[in-house]
């Protein structure tokens, strides 16, 4: 190999101010024009390494070389000057701005003193066409589905002159066809000479996309190999050490009485992605109903209605036979509902509060955690410790702020909290998004356990394998309507669901 690697990490170490050693002397190279995957468990240090490369964090030891030269990347601005762009694990979009304003933030085209809106629109449209990622330049980001926001994030990263594109779990929110499409685009970018750093927990994706893979374990380099020289099982071992994961198994069991009944719910929302056009559903005790559908087909609207965040314009829903339309979220939760939201960071958690506060939120008024006006702090901490060990959450301790946890570990805190309430009705919206293989298997196992004990589960997932592994029945949502409700079984495959998800077939 004659050419210098485009990026070389040399003994990179990172010690966060709270003492956590996220990286302990990591060295490896990235060859120009390749797609390089980085794998590791939740908390292994992947995002930390990428943030150092993007100038968001400073390494506490080691050197980064670009084209062989040692460089100092002190800010995202400096990273941009080296041609480094990043799509973040947690979105960095501004909800109240439009798509075009977000993508061109900091590099707006001008006409005189004003933003040249026409030029901005055209630039976004050209960018979207070039990478085949559709986006409406004038839409407000707040109204977009998570998948649409993901596309905007990627376009934003590509809007500058890029040599190196960092993608921190970009596919976590995409459905399989969307992921395939993205991968075709990424291959195209590689052909255009762009180097891509790609983080994912899904080995299938790594296999399909990457030329080389580096694995991290607890801040140390555990492996670095060309994809051709390493099997999936070997990668999994390098990522997890010796532990083996057992995929969860759905066992047939009887169902109880009807728990949730949704009758003809209509939601005329401002944002199309939330619209519901007469949705009816039923879930029995012990049953898992999976919702399949391209993201933005009404999932967010359905969840908002069932959690009492919005009042539907028409229709009703019943929990255990009682009408729940107009009930507040607090009342619904008291009645046994739990909700693991898809957007864990905006809706599910408070990043600056501690792990304890996040793990107890919602239950803080129960007699278990409060006496009169006072919280029982010791009880809270005991419970948080129990959740931390049950869900193997990697964190410095229960009092650490949630912002000091890795993306996946923060998600596990929220999942642990919702599961711990022993709900009679659970809404699990993308429960394993961003969670590593072992932890995902664990969470899926817990969902099955809960169902066995009589919980009615509404499972929404972009991951069809997960949906088919867990659901007793699958309902397909398309453009705010249920287009099919199918019993799960060996005959039900992603191929069978596809036409319903795309609105080509309608069995309802």
């Amino acid at each position: 190999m004659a050419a210098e690697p485009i990026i070389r990490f040399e003994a990179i170490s990172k010690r966060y101010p709270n003492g956590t050693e996220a990286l302990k002397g990591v060295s490896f190279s990235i060859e120009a024009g390749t797609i390089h995957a980085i794998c590791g468990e939740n908390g292994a240090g992947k995002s930390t390494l990428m943030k150092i490369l993007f100038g968001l964090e400073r390494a506490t030891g080691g050197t980064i070389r670009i084209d062989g030269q040692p460089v100092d990347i002190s800010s995202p601005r400096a990273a941009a000057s080296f041609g480094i762009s990043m799509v973040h694990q947690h979105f960095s979009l501004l909800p109240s701005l439009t798509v075009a304003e977000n993508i061109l933030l900091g590099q707006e085209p001008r006409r005189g003193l004003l933003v040249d809106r026409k030029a901005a629109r055209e630039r976004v449209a050209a960018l979207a066409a070039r990478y085949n990622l559709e986006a409406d330049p004038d839409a407000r980001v707040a109204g977009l589905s998570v998948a649409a926001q993901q596309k905007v994030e990627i376009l934003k990263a590509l809007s500058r002159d890029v040599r190196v594109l960092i993608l921190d779990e970009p596919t976590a929110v995409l459905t399989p066809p969307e992921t395939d499409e993205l991968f075709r685009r990424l291959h195209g970018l590689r052909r255009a000479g762009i180097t891509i750093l790609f983080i994912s927990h899904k080995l299938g994706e790594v296999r399909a996309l990457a030329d080389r893979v580096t694995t991290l374990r607890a801040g140390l380099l555990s492996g670095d190999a060309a994809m051709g020289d390493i099997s999936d099982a070997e990668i999994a071992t390098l990522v997890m050490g010796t532990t083996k994961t057992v995929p969860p198994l759905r066992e047939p069991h009887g169902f109880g009485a009807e728990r949730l009944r949704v009758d003809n719910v209509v939601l005329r929302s401002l944002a199309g992605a939330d619209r519901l056009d007469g949705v009816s559903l039923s879930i029995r005790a012990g049953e898992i109903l999976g919702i399949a559908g391209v993201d933005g087909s009404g999932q967010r609207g359905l969840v908002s209605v069932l959690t009492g965040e919005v009042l539907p314009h028409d229709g009703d829903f019943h929990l255990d036979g009682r009408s729940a339309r107009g009930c507040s979220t607090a009342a619904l939760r008291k009645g046994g509902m739990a909700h693991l939201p898809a957007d864990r960071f905006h809706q599910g958690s408070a990043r600056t509060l501690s792990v304890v506060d996040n793990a107890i939120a919602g239950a803080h008024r129960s007699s278990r955690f409060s006496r009169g006006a006072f919280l029982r702090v010791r009880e809270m901490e005991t419970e948080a410790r129990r959740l931390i060990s049950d869900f193997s959450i990697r964190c410095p301790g229960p009092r650490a702020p949630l912002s000091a946890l890795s993306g996946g570990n923060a998600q596990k805190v929220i999942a642990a909290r919702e599961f711990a309430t022993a709900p009679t009705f659970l809404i699990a919206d993308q429960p394993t998004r961003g969670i590593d293989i072992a932890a995902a298997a664990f969470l899926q196992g817990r969902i099955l356990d809960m169902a066995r004990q009589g919980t009615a589960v509404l499972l929404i997932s972009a991951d069809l394998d997960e949906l088919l592994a867990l659901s007793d029945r699958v309902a397909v949502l398309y453009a705010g309507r249920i287009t099919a409700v199918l019993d799960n079984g060996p005959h039900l495959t992603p191929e069978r669901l596809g036409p319903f998800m795309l609105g080509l077939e309608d069995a309802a």
Partner: protein
Amino acid sequence: MTFLETIAHIVDLVPVLLRVTTPILLAALGVHISQKAGVLNLGVEGMMLAAALAGVLASAASGSAWVGLAGALATGAVLGFLLSFAIHVLKADLILSGIALNMLAAAGTTLVLYMLTGDKGMSGSLSSGVLPSLAIPLIADIPVLGRLLSGHHVLTYLAFAMVPVVAVLMMRTPFGIRLRAVGESAEAAATAGIDVARMQIAALVLSGLLAGAAGAFLSMGYVSWFSQNMSGGRGFVALAADLMGYGSAWGTMAASLLLGAADAFVISLQGKGIPSELLQSLPYIVPIVALVIHARARRKRFVRI
């Protein structure tokens, strides 16, 4: 009262309404800019007060009302800069710094006044200029329209002209978009390569300039003197106007007019046998009621997104 007389009566009220709205609107637009940048200018009351005194002093020293206005604007801008300096360099708390600025201005203006004039209440012995009102040629001669559009104070025209200027600045310029980005998520804005501190400093300096203009209007708009605590809570009323303005410059103007109307109403009732204590509390009761109504309206549950 005939119909025409009623109309004439209402037309007569308009200049009063615009006059009392002017300082509230100027200050509220300043608050609006700061709030959009995520650094709500709680020191606006103190900035107005200090600028009012600085205007009188600069005018008395130079003999020109315009130099006085420049002094008032500069004072507001400098205080805006100091506030952002406290937040960004000294890492002081935004709210506490704003409150401290208000207290400092209240005490500081009295001290300076006493040192220069020997009087703690009024600056009567200093003669300051008065900024002019403008008669618009031709329009001034049209019967009703002339009364509505012409003859107002130069700063009144400025205040209302600033509404579209601020609206365009915030919504249509790169500066405004970046400012709003910083206010919405400093972290995300920084990731996009925007210098958060610089944007917030700029926002507070602009906010101070507008508060300075409001202060100049108080001491040099129709009178030629400064009196102790002459801002009289208008800065806080401006904060309320911004909160009620639904995050837009035009909304801020509407709210300022509403709160100004309460003031004007009080003025029109003065000397009509209603207890003056009751009357004087009205301008403070209106913002409270308006904020409560506003908060309730926002709880409408249908439209979330």
